[in-house]
């Protein structure tokens, strides 16, 4: 039974490597984790102004992995 769990864990994983050139679908706006990028941008701007600090929130650029 333990072997079966181990097998499922290793071989039935849904994770896989995505090559840089296979990220076209991930790059689409509707694949973004942000529901409202504009609203989030304003919120971070407001937060930065109020706290006199910025950064540390997230990396932009969506899911395409573009440089």
């Amino acid at each position: 039974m333990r072997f079966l769990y181990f097998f499922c864990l290793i071989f039935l994983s849904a994770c896989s490597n995505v090559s840089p050139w296979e990220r076209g679908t991930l790059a689409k706006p509707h694949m973004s984790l942000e529901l409202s990028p504009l609203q989030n941008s304003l919120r971070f701007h407001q937060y930065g102004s109020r706290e006199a600090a910025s950064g540390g929130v997230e990396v932009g650029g969506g899911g395409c992995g573009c440089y």
Partner: protein
Amino acid sequence: MASVEASSVGENAPDCVLTSLTNTPVHFHEYQGKVLYVDFWASWCTSCVQSFPFLNQLTHEFGEQGLHIVGVNLDEKIDDAMVFLGHHPSHFTIANHGGEQCAKSFDVQAMPSSFLIDKKGVIRYTHQGFRAGETEELKAQIVQLLSEK
């Protein structure tokens, strides 16, 4: 599974056999004796939009001196590339068919990625991404390679 050849500075460039948008064969080995700039791009890559005017400028500035630029398209749908090229015309060779295998051979790690190959077929400069502030360094490299025999 296809083999992956790491392509780094100082190594011989992998040979890619591609087909251009006009159905002309593009064979990297045929560019020996010229300086070859290989740019891997896709329509969804935002940095690629910025790089196209610069690559067009390089073509006009150094084309007659022996620089040849090949833009290897990696779009999964060729229609996406055609729409992109409609908005951002290229003045250099665009190749698409065979691009994925070529990207594996060059071990492309990010989009866009570019490789500058000297007249002997050796990779002399690699770059990932595109930022306007880095163009002068690239131009200096091209001038250097064009001056070599």
